[in-house]
């Protein structure tokens, strides 16, 4: 009897693992494929049917993609834009969040409600006038055109406001009593104490900008201004490039975000479990 239950349990656990294994293979295969193609020779790739393992550790694709395509330029553009957007977003969001949390001024609640209302307007809805505005400014195909429209998000202001609100009130009152100005409080107390939230905002902002597709597609005309997402898909349109070169480019582009994910997954899950959605 007990043996029967034990066997049944082993069987169910076996099924449990088998199912997870199949799902894991399905989920990971597309990513694995990009990396395995990176090390395949053109002959291997062009042989009929898909290949699962590279026969040798061929480095020619990496060399060719670096030499014949501006992929490093694309990566540089994406990093430059994403870092500057991130810095801009942190500065403007932190300032606004401080204003909304610690200062009282006329119309504060109305302005905050107005800000929150923009969360309901997807960027696709406003993209046409924004594009026409960039044309009028002469900002098409420039870094400022890629960066400036994104250096404020209401999400960022909201996130930092929630974290500022949780700072110990006594500490701030004590600083006020000592005659610290608001700028001083902002720079030397509120910002340093909110480093985890600012870090989270920075990561979300960076990855979000790195992934932008529609806006850089509209804003970049010349090859040297393209960001990774646009540049990499345009490689595929160039007839002379074979699949292994394109996928090598994909693998190179993926490497930074995969590394960040693997290094930071625990914190990410912890951050999600820790709060945010709890009511």
């Amino acid at each position, binding site marked *: 009897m007990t043996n029967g239950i034990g066997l049944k349990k082993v069987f169910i656990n076996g099924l449990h693992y088998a199912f997870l294994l199949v799902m894991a293979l399905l989920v*990971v295969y597309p*990513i694995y494929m990009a990396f395995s193609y990176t090390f395949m020779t053109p002959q291997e*790739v062009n042989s009929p049917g898909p290949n699962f393992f590279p026969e040798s550790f061929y480095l020619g694709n990496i060399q060719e993609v670096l030499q014949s395509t501006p992929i490093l330029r694309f990566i540089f553009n994406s990093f430059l834009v994403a870092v500057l957007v991130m810095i801009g977003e942190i500065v403007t969001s932190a300032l606004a969040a401080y204003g909304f949390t610690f200062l009282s001024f006329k119309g504060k609640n109305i302005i905050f409600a107005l800000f929150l209302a923009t969360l309901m307007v997807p960027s696709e809805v406003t*993209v046409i*006038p924004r594009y026409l*505005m960039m044309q009028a400014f002469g900002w098409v195909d420039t870094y400022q055109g890629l960066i400036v429209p994104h250096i404020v998000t209401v999400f960022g202001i909201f996130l930092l406001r929630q974290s500022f609100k949780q700072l110990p009130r006594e500490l701030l009152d004590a600083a006020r009593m000592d005659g610290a100005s608001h700028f001083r409080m902002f720079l030397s107390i509120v910002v340093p104490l909110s480093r985890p939230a600012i870090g989270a905002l920075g990561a979300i902002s960076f990855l979000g900008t790195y992934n932008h*597709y*529609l806006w850089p597609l509209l804003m970049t005309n010349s090859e040297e201004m393209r960001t990774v997402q646009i540049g990499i898909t345009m490689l*595929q349109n160039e007839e002379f490039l074979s699949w292994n070169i394109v996928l090598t480019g994909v693998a190179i582009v993926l490497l930074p975000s995969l590394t960040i994910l693997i290094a930071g997954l625990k914190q990410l899950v912890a951050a999600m479990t820790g709060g945010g959605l709890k009511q």
Partner: protein
Amino acid sequence: MAKKLTELQAPGLSSKDNYQKKTLVLQRWKENILGYGFIFPAFLILGAFVFYPFFQSVYLSFFTTDPSGNIAEFAGFQNYIHLFTNSEFLSSLGITLLFTLYTVPASIILALLLAVLTYNKWKGMQIFQLIFSLPIAMTIGTSSLIWMLLYDPSTGLFNYLLHHLGLPSIQWLNDPSWALISVSIMSIWMSLGLNYIILLAGVRHVPEEIYESARVDGAGSLRILLQMTIPLMSPYLFFVFVTSVISSLQAFGQFNILTNGGPADSTNVFVYSLYQEAFVNFQYGLGSTRALILFVVIMLLTWLNFKFGERRVHYQ
């Protein structure tokens, strides 16, 4: 705070009180100006790149424009009438809803199943957790390219597998009856990472003792899942549902890269048609009309979600 103090001091003002009152008024002024100063950068950027374009979109939707974006003439409701009597527009609405229907439930059910099966501390679960989160690192550009190769009729994996099973091959992205399904499968895969991470957090949010007492009471795994886990993590499910619906209505990149809205307009989703109208045909007025209809549709669906969905959500 400042207001209260001045009120307290109002009766019987001496010259000293008067002085204090003046400094308080001054302080309040200072704080007002400082407050506006702190929010000014955010206000300026949001005003220029969100508020102004939004009202400009509304304005443009009532006009026709020339190719450089200048107003040509007032069209009244003509743009709206034109779209709602246009079969291409109506079919793009339908295709977008179909895409939402194909992707959102499948992705959520899959992510929930994987979260429930991997939340515990058994051997190897951390590796599974990492693998199921991986698609979050994928971007629209890189995913689309990889899946383009997977769907390749001659060298792709899918037709290779079909061939080995003795089944006829499929023109995944070139067959009007398969293209939307193909892009949907890829989109489910892409959204799996984020949905899985959020739902994994949700499953962990349910206290372990609840499972233990349920098991002691002899409840089976399926009953625990349906009657305890799902209701207790419903805020997470609701959040994932609302954000997934909104993002599937906004899908654009995978369609632009994989199918260009084709074949035979079978994957011409809403934002793709907006993009074509505005940035390929240079009809900015009509494009703005489409944008506003998108806005209304998203508002309406979000409102419906909250009206009917949140009632079922159980907050602890």
